């Protein structure tokens, strides 16, 4: 679409319809491939639908998606992932019957699949070594090393969210789409989560685009933020401006909940 290459995610006129429901209405995004960008909006605003349209899990009715300068609008989910998208889900999508280590390793190994005909049957020794190393490193970073041999389905929600994050961090994705990663977490876990996320973006150089209801958390980690309401983008800009903006206050935080603190606690209840 545009000739200048943008390092990150760029959408133009992205629209998602489910039958008659207009879930995402002509949204333009320019999400940087570095740092953390937030996406906020009330329940049913279309945040998940927007993510799914970017990642290719739902088909956009209109508009284009560009990833690190490459038009991926027509690509399937797995192709987009190979072009740099990583993803966690609002409802945790773990490989529940596998161990935590297997989950995280799969995050890394996925990139090797289909590389050579033999790749389906077994891992090459070099691939195996690299996978082990990366998985250990990431589990360390996410502080789940002690859970490594547990079956993922048996963990608490908070632990599962960490495993999901570790899995996507173990892969080569350059831009992570995280859908409400802190819902179901205790406040202690939330604090830890924020640190890990900041670490990951700084140390590993990944970009993060995060849907989050917890305004405290958003204010703490995000530099820029988009606000979605009824499928429409009603604000794009820095976090500070968002908190000051009248429109954002009115539509997202609601007339009766004017302060950031209360909005944050409401988010926690929703989660």
């Amino acid at each position, binding site marked *: 679409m545009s000739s200048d290459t943008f390092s990150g995610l760029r959408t133009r006129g992205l629209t998602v319809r489910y039958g008659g429901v207009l879930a995402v209405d002509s949204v333009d995004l320019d999400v940087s491939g570095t740092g953390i960008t937030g996406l906020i909006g009330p329940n*049913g605003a279309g945040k998940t639908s927007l993510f799914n349209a970017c990642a290719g899990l739902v088909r956009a009715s209109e508009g284009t998606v560009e990833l690190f300068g490459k038009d991926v609008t027509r690509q399937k989910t797995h192709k987009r992932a190979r072009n740099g998208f990583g993803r966690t889900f609002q409802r945790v999508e773990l490989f529940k019957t596998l161990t935590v280590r297997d989950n995280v390793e799969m995050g890394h190994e996925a990139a090797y699949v289909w590389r050579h005909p033999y790749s389906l049957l*077994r891992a090459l020794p070099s691939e195996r070594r690299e996978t082990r190393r990366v998985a250990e490193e990431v589990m360390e970073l996410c502080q789940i090393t002690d859970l490594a041999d547990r079956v993922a389905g048996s963990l608490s929600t908070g632990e599962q969210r960490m495993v999901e994050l570790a899995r996507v961090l173990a892969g080569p994705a350059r831009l992570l789409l995280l859908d409400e990663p802190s819902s179901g977490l205790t406040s202690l876990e939330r604090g830890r989560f924020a640190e890990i996320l900041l670490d990951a973006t700084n140390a590993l150089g990944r970009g993060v685009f995060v849907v989050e209801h917890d305004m405290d958390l958003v204010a703490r980690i995000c530099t820029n933020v988009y606000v979605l309401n009824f499928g429409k983008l009603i604000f794009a800009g820095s976090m500070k401006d968002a908190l000051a903006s009248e429109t954002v206050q009115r539509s997202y935080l609601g007339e009766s909940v004017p302060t950031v603190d209360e909005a944050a606690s409401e988010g926690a209840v929703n989660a």
Partner: protein
Amino acid sequence: MTDYLPMFVSGIADGSVVAIAAMGLVLSYKASGIFNFAHGAIGAVAAGVFYQLYHLNGLPAWLALIITLVAVGLVFGFLMERVAYFVASASATMKVVSTIGIMISLSSLFNIRYGGITKEFPSFLPQETFTFLDVNIAYEQVIVIALGLALAIGMTIFFRTTLLGRGMRAIVDDPQLVGLIGLNPTTVRRWAWVIGVTFAAIAGVFIAPNIGLDGTTLTLLVVEGFGAAAIGRFSSLPLTYLGAVLIQIGVAVTGKYSADHPSWQSVPSALPFAVLFLVLLLSPKGWLVEVGASLQQRVTTIPNQSRKIGAAKLVPMVAFIIAVPYLFQDHMLAWTKGMVFVILMLSLSLLVRLSNQVSLCQMTFAAVGAAASYHLIDHGMPWSVALLGAGLVAIPIGAFVAIPAVRLSGVYLALATLSFGLFMQTFMFEMPFMFGDNPLPLITSRPSFAESDKAYFYMIPIVGALCYGLVRLIERGRLGQLLRSKADSPIALESLGVNIALLPLVAFCAAAFLAGIAGALLGPNIGVVSKGDFHTIPTSLLLVALLVLNGRERRIGSLGASLGAAIGLVVLPEYITSYDWLQGLNLLFGVLAVEAALASTRSSKTKAVPPGEPAPIETVPGSSDPVAATPVGGSHVQ
């Protein structure tokens, strides 16, 4: 052309009967999310009941008909509603197995009562004919056509206008909504099943005079209705009706044509299955929506990975196999066949247990292997090369069947494999490059290094061990891990950059390879091989039923499960000489398969929330509004 006019009339008449069955099937599927593979067997049972009342007890036809329809409709309607209710949350495989189990049970009961030989079924409708446009038309045909049309129109109106009908359409996706409009969901489901089953009964009774009282043929005829249901997207009654009529016109017309063109001989019987397979093959993504899939628990109920077999298990197993020729001298061939079936079972367990896919055409792959090895040896290939060749030839066939598997899952994949198996059986088996249209079996030979019964017996477990090695390699390797991951969460795997569409294809190729090898081993055992050894119904279906039966026991693992199933399916019947007891054994398998399917939901319910852990809290967008939360086609990705 005028020669063909009568064919159109009889096609429409047959089509009307098949349409009635197909509409009943669609109705119960829509209302319950359970695709009833036993639909045809229920039709056959109804024909049997009517035969008893009308022919044997001498009741007037109308009375016999009413009693049959009411009794069969109520008994099976209520029964199916309960079964469907309990397996609603089971895995797709278990849903399929539950009704296949019922089908096997009913067929056995039918055979116990009426024997395996076709009995003439007295016609009960007026046989007089009249001439219209130079065509002789029987009043019987007019009655059947009118009945089909009336039921099609009546049901369509019923669905559109009545409260109960509308409730039936909505019930699966939204039981609460049905509750809101003042209907009891259980009542709605029950009546949907009663109507659906009654339709099967009507079809069974009205078609029987044409083909006689024969359980298998009656069952198959209703399976022909599956193709019509597919044309109606398993949802639209008018389209289903139209599909059935068109298919049966095709059958009648090609039947007439083939009378003068012997090469077309098998086209009529293959046509309905070809249509079903093609519709499933060509349907665009999202065109067929699996009803009730959202109710499925995302817990894998079948153990995924078999345990490593330790020496503790291996030593007795090997000792037993070595002892078999000495212990069971009189039944050596049966035990050899049993060993071959272990390989077949292994191939199936690769799909069912590892890849969570169900194949109802495993015997077809075996047939391809058997035919391939025969022809390869015939062309001068060494025996062992031909054996490998048999496996390799089956691979592209597996890949072909798996094309629907790329987009379809659950019940639609089961249907695709079933229709493929039946199509191959009715059409391809007859081809000269397979078994030929000659009824004589092919003469097969054993390898020079294993001519004796004993040597040949010992050879099979050795080949089996190699096959098992391959299965283990796949299970423990990357493919196994990918398939397990995919079973747990396809969208997560996709989002990690794996092209998940091709994984089932690879699994199918591997399974077909193993089944092809098994097929090649089957013939040389008794010296001959024929198409009758590879029937989809019931053998392929029994394979699936037995596999899940054994799979219940986690400790057994894939090898133990395969061994147990093979012994049950092949060796045990060899010791039973009475026909009734043989059918009784099948009845037992059927009942146990249903039980296994029901038990799978019980065990997964307790597993879904591990003890001591709170259930994961899930937020559903717009959950306060039940209408908005209903997915409009496709999966609901969050």
